[in-house]
């Protein structure tokens, strides 16, 4: 609750100008080639008729399934794929099947791969230890819709930050709370809501992850809750909806 109150102003500031979108559709793969991982992901919003470039999503679509798209229109960013660029953007793979659709490059260059800023460094690179004064601190991991998978180059990075902090401050307790966004929402003419059970699955997953990273069992406390509300979570990049689908790691001194 505390976190929510603190967060609210940050949200308002980031979101006030650009339009955010949320819709469900079948993804389209555009076969551009500017080297590794350079293909394009497009998503047509059926209601508005607009085509979006969702290539910047940390977890990308699967051409066999529908996706839930959540993002903010980056009007001043030119697309190399053909479509309005969403950034930040999240795409969650849904279980409903889609016909595969692949477009040729049609002159679009695609996105040349660059290492995302959120990447976990090899073990051989020494982490910078946190510096005092220390205080209680909460970390958030953010998940795709109805998923409990620690997303590569997003959540693993955030988890690495959390464990570096935990190792540095040697807390008395680490409270892991899994949340599920169970309040129904209307998206693309459908009512969607997360499975309440995913809250517990998320908590247990992150609990096991922290255990493997050396947090002793007796310091760990797992909780799970439904009806999640938005918070300011680094991993959500200011997008409200993804920030509901999260795990809080509260590090108590």
């Amino acid at each position: 609750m505390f976190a929510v109150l603190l967060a609210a102003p940050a949200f308002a500031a980031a979101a006030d100008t650009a339009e955010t979108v949320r819709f469900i559709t079948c993804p389209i793969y555009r076969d551009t080639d500017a080297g590794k991982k350079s293909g394009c992901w497009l998503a047509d919003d059926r209601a508005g008729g607009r085509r979006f470039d969702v290539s910047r999503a940390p977890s990308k679509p699967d051409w066999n399934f529908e996706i839930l798209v959540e993002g903010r229109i980056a009007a001043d960013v030119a697309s190399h794929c053909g479509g309005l660029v969403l950034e930040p953007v999240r795409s969650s793979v849904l279980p409903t099947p889609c016909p595969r659709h692949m477009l040729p490059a049609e002159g679009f260059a695609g996105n040349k791969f660059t290492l995302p800023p959120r990447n976990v460094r090899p073990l051989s690179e020494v982490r910078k230890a946190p510096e005092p004064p220390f205080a209680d601190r909460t970390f958030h991991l953010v998940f795709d819709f109805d998923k409990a998978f620690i997303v590569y180059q997003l959540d693993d990075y955030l988890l690495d930050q959390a464990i570096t902090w935990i190792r540095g401050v040697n807390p008395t307790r680490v409270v892991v709370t899994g949340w599920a966004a169970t309040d129904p929402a209307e998206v693309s003419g459908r009512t969607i809501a997360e499975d309440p059970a995913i809250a517990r699955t998320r908590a247990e997953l992150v609990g096991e992850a922290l255990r493997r990273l050396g947090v002793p069992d007796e310091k760990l406390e797992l909780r799970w809750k439904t009806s999640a509300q938005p918070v300011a979570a680094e991993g959500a990049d200011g997008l409200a909806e993804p920030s509901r689908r999260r795990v809080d790691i509260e590090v108590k001194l």
Partner: protein
Amino acid sequence: MIRAAPLVLAAAALAALTSALAAPASRPERWWAPGEGRVFPAELDYENETGTLRTMLVGGPMKTKGHPFFAPIGPNGRACVTCHQPADSMSLSAQTAQERWTATNGRDPLFAAGDGSNCPTLPQATRASHSLLLDHGLIRIQRSWPPKDLTGKAITPDFTIETVRDPWGCNTGAKYGPAAASPNVSVYRRPRPISNLKYLLAVGFAYDPKQGMPLPLDPESGRPMSGNLMADGRAGTLNAQMRDAASTHLEFLKNMSARDMARIVYFESRLFSAQIRDRRGGALDAGGAEGGPDKLARSQPGNLGSQGPAPVWSEFAAWEKPDPSLTPEQSAFRQSVARGARSFREKMFLISDSAGINSPIGFGNPVRNSCVFCHNMTQMGNDVAPGQVDLGTTTQPFADPAPHLPLFRITCRRDPHPHYGRVIYTSDPGYALTTGRCADVGKITLQSMRGLAARAPYFSNGSAKDLRAVVDYYDRRYRIGYTEQEKQDLVNLMSAL
């Protein structure tokens, strides 16, 4: 395939001043029999179809007499060395198995009924009962079902497994198969090479991005495990692997002593193998190239080629520049290898429906990348992250027809498999036999890529009879559209590793 002796001599002469002429004068016997007591030299060279493989034992020669890797410690007369032979890059080629069959009339302990025959219930004296080992280089691996986790607790699988086809009777009946009184699943796999192991054991990152979790910890040492051993990842450490091997391949039921295990680990950790000489190209560590095992012994393992210090197969980068002093044949070979190395890294294609890559990690399905996307560790070509990926080698519709192998029907009980749906047909569920998860069906741990020339056939089920067949499989699987030249370049590269 067979080159005239004079040609070999000519090439060698031209490669004077290289290590080509430093070959030992007398040829060591190819087959290492259990308990024979030879000294394992510091450097051991064996010929193969395209050249010479070298195995180095760092720290100098070792007496093998009484050594637990070489001694027949079980009742069946076998030792570890039976299936991990120096001439075969510490694996076992199908050709070697055939030679043993011929030399011993099928009586070598290699053909022990337990796992050196298609099924122990078959008449053991006939060749047909050992056809999987002789024709495909395969050893029977019997996994108990359901699997247990690292702490020994039974896992509740999220799928059911039934036998659809059972050509040898080891997956049906009262004793064998998933419906037996104590359920088990028999699959057939190639022995994996046991040199260069520091690369397979290297832990580059704390996370397994494919499973979305930090690496699991070894219950014995509390340390994270690399996840790069065994086709199905069932053993996370050399100790765990040894217990598995001793109780199955060697029918040695008592636990191995800690001292024996330590001796084996010490031996394995000093072994490095790689091709050192090519019949057409000459020395593989000449002209600025860095082939051969010496570099492997000296280098730090666990580096992602894309993050430096050196890209994968940059060992052969110096050969990109033509050298006018070479014979046309030598020059053509060197440049082909150098092109192959580049193509391995740079030739892009669409990778699709391969769990571990296209799901759930978030790369997208499909994703454009090259061979090095999966084979990404510098100098070894295995995966820096735990390498459980479904290439389709064992699973329909991507697997080549294999009437000689059993076929299982997997039915996912909860979520369907991300690419195959709810019902899957496979001859080896791979990693799923260890995790009990239907999302892992068909995932096979990437092998190391050194010493390939000495250990055909390839892939864990031996489905690629030679290196050309490996490239052809990828060309079909991902519709790459290689030219004839590109295929040949990749084959030459891989034969030089």
